[in-house]
């Protein structure tokens, strides 16, 4: 009852209405209101997705460029000068350009692709559809969220073209390097633009996150209790809570940095003498303060990236194994535990920063504690596959790939979370391998699982399966070939963010390996372009979806028309009678959430 009421109030401003005449008497949609300043959550989701993809291409291309430098530090490629101009004079990327590429690659992949592109897309798309709402709690705020993101992305893009170059001090932007233009050219105008861009991004995340939370809590359809929600929604919920609580802290850290850069304050600066400039007036600040503020977001951020993947993988895996997700309550519990613990582990990024070792020891304990809920999730996924009847749709393949990556990358977290090992492995290629597998590749695999699975709902067509299979198998094998050997480089102590290793007696033995990794990286990048082609081609030429529920799924989004309009359901919003995972129950292939519980049905949920 209260659900219905909120639903009415929530959508009372006339864009949608619950009666049958809906759709006829409003919505004179023009191109601009439909495709640009749209307030339809589905269109906003697509905007997030396509902007995210554009950044993924750019970020991926950057990684290809710096991998070329790492593989062939003493060769020239004239084409690079064609692309990058004086940043690659004579076809050889300069150190300055290399560091800018590394920095912007990290920033855009973490924030624009795996935060906005991933949870922006799927939270927007799936929350109203799966909880049974006509749109978000505030469609207008939702639209603003996208446009703040878009503006932020434009500003970041513009920073690539300023004379002193984009920011080049690493995506974590530690001061004093990021605070002092005299210490690095990238910390001049490029850094100002970076900070403005990131500040707008935080605004975008907050607008989006508050909306997601409000929608999930208030706008569930009749019968959709919290414990009947699909795990996707639980994951988006915790993701949004993490974002809302941690992004403001990041913003505060950035504001102090803006003050230090422009207004002569000394929050992060003390005892600094810059070559060619002399001693700076700042005294009494602490660069460590910034690290605390940054990682207080920075760590929840990695869960903001991975939780949506976990949720979508649970959903896709259960659907395609034709079997209920194992341990639904344990899955929610572990998401909750991860969400809480993610706020209590940030200083494990700072074990060697001079942090009090006694304080560090608590962070060791809490960090390794996160492995427990992560282990629960992995075992639950494995048990979900056990005795299932698995259909290898592209979405399912990516879900299995996600679990594989999450295991591989997650286990090395146990190495790095233990401070006494971190003291050797910190800031080496070991950490690069770790977070790319567990957050980067697993995150993007979750995103692919979601795209392939919900593509029919987004565009009413299928993507080409053969291309999808090629895409999956090459990407899976490629990701391991790229990142697995990096563990060895890290064990040898090879530091990250080096432009050239040839002058180092300790690290130069990995020259051939770096060539190998770079070649695989280029192949994997090319295959992602194949995916993009498949994505856009299928939008217009893909096989049409002919049935409302192509995957035989239980959840509400598959009860909408094949091409749902704004408002999602043409008639009344369906009522929910059961949880989302009645697959293979009582000999039936699946029972939709909208089906009332039958008389002779065995009781489970």
């Amino acid at each position, binding site marked *: 009852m209260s659900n219905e009421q909120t639903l009415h109030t929530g959508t009372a401003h006339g864009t949608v209405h619950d009666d049958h005449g809906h759709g006829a008497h409003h919505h004179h949609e023009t191109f601009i209101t439909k495709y640009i300043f749209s307030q339809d959550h589905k269109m906003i989701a697509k905007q997030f997705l396509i902007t995210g993809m554009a950044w993924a291409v750019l970020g991926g291309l950057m990684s290809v460029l710096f991998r070329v430098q790492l593989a062939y530090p003493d060769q020239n490629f004239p084409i690079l000068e064609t692309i990058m101009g004086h940043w690659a004079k004579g076809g050889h990327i300069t*150190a300055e350009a290399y560091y800018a590429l590394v920095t912007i690659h990290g920033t855009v992949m973490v924030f624009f692709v795996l935060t906005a592109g991933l949870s922006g897309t799927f939270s927007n798309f799936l929350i109203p559809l799966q909880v049974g709402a006509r749109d978000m709690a505030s469609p207008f705020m939702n639209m603003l969220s996208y446009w703040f993101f878009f503006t932020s992305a434009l500003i970041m893009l513009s920073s690539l073209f300023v004379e002193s170059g984009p920011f080049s*001090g690493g995506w974590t932007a*530690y*001061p*004093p*390097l990021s605070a002092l233009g005299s210490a690095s050219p*990238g910390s001049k105008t490029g850094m100002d633009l970076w900070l403005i861009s990131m500040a707008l991004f935080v605004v975008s995340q907050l607008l989006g996150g508050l909306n997601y939370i409000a929608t999930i809590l208030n706008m569930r359809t009749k019968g959709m209790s919290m414990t009947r929600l699909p795990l996707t929604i639980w994951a988006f919920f915790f993701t949004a809570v993490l974002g809302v609580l941690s992004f403001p802290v990041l913003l505060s850290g950035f504001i102090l940095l803006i003050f230090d850069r422009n207004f002569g304050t000394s929050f992060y600066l003390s*005892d*600094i003498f810059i*070559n060619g400039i*002399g001693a700076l007036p700042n005294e009494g600040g602490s660069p460590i303060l910034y690290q605390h503020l940054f990682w207080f977001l920075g760590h929840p951020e990695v869960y903001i990236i991975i939780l949506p993947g976990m949720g979508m993988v649970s959903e896709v895996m259960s659907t395609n*194994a034709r*079997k209920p997700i*194992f*341990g639904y*309550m344990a899955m929610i519990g572990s998401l909750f535990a991860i969400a809480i613990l993610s706020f209590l582990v940030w200083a494990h990024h700072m074990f060697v*920063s001079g942090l009090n*070792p006694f304080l*560090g*020891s608590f962070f*060791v*304990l809490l960090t390794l*504690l996160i*492995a*427990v809920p992560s282990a629960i999730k992995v*075992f639950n996924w*494995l048990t979900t596959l056990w*005795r299932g*009847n698995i*259909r*290898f749709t592209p979405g399912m393949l990516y879900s*299995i790939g996600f679990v594989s990556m999450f*295991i*591989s990358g997650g*286990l090395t977290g146990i*190495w790095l979370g233990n401070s006494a*090992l971190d*003291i*050797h492995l*910190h*800031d080496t290629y070991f950490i690069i391998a770790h977070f790319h597998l567990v957050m980067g590749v697993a995150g993007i695999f979750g995103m692919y699982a979601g795209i392939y699975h919900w593509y029919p709902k987004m565009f009413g067509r299928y993507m080409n*399966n*053969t291309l999808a*299979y*090629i895409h999956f*198998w090459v990407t899976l*094998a490629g990701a*391991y*070939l790229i990142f697995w050997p990096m563990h*060895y480089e890290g064990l040898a102590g090879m*530091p*990250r*963010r*080096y432009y050239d290793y040839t*002058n180092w*007696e300790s690290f130069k033995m990995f020259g051939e390996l770096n060539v190998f990794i770079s070649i695989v990286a280029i192949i994997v990048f090319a295959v992602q372009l194949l995916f993009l*082609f498949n994505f856009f081609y299928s939008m217009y030429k893909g096989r049409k979806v002919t049935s409302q529920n192509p995957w035989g799924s239980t959840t509400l989004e598959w009860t909408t028309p094949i091409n749902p309009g704004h408002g999602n359901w043409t008639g009344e919003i369906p009522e929910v009678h059961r949880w989302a995972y009645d697959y*293979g129950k*009582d000999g039936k292939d699946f029972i939709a959430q909208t089906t009332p519980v039958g008389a002779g049905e065995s009781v*489970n949920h």
Partner: protein
Amino acid sequence: MSTFFIIAVLILLFVVIFQIAKASEYVAILKGEEKSRKHDNKINGFLMIAFLVLGLIGVYYCHEILKGRVLQESASKEGEKVDEMLHITLAVTGIVFIITQVLLFWFSYKYQESEKRKVFFFPHNNTMEVVWTVVPAIVLSVLVVIGLRNWFIFTGEPPKNAMIVEVTGKQFGWIFRYPGKDNQFGKRYFRNIDPSNNSLGLIWADNKELNQKADPAAYDDIVQEQTMYVIKDRPVKLIIGSRDVIHDVGLSHFRLKMDAVPGIPTTLWFTPKFTTAEMKEKTGNANFQYEISCNQMCGNGHYSMKGVIEVVEEDEYYAWMAKQKPYYYGAFPEKDPSATPPAPGGAPPSSPDSAARITTASVTRTTAGDHNNKLK
């Protein structure tokens, strides 16, 4: 020209793959979509098990190729503990890795769609869930205990006989300071820095403006750039700082590292086990060096910020130290007693005995007081 050729080939390859993919879709429609879907399912099921087998072989093969290139035996006593922990953690996570990956891909293969199979409706089982909550928790507790025990050793006080060297990072190099004969580091203040002759800003003279008094302990401090000398089997404590941005003293052969933060001194200590010469022999690399790598992004020259540690026998160290002149004399050559005409029968001012005795851990260092100079 060749770049365009490569691009052309790539585009051609794309077109070919795309045509095959499109054709397969038409074939699927002709053959019946359900039938071809099942066919694809079998192929993917097979690829699952193939990937598992090839992957495990790959893991083994990768190890065979690369195991010779990772670091050999730790060059410090403390590093042995790191290596021991690495092995324990590798064993634990390795077992979990193999079990879970095998189950993942094996289940995927075994339970691929088949008309004969009836799905097992299995929504939850409390016993199983408790088991895989408690067992990881216990194993992790063990790892935490081992880790923290080592952590407190690494970050605790060094043995009493430890020598002390101050390490200061700058864009893009390292400055090392030894306390000199008096076993005491003189005070420094960053406003006194003069890159030409006072790279650390030692307080050699009174300065009314900065409200500071000359520190006599600073007169005999020895300052070196790029190469640090330490003694084999003698613990050495590094007092680490930075002159500009954050750097990091990365000691991969000793298995340790610590950030160099402007304004906040950090410390790190270790006991080298082999001299540089011994390591040259052990590694079979005549160019072997103990390198200090900067591990914290510090600007465009980050990758070239190298320092060298020479680990030598005790007598070599004293012989080397005897040749070093206090940094003060570099800035004020007229104050150098050895620069004046030698007194009749006068011994050189420094000999192994009279030269800087080794600094011990009891030496006090007073950068913290530097701030006060100004504040007073």
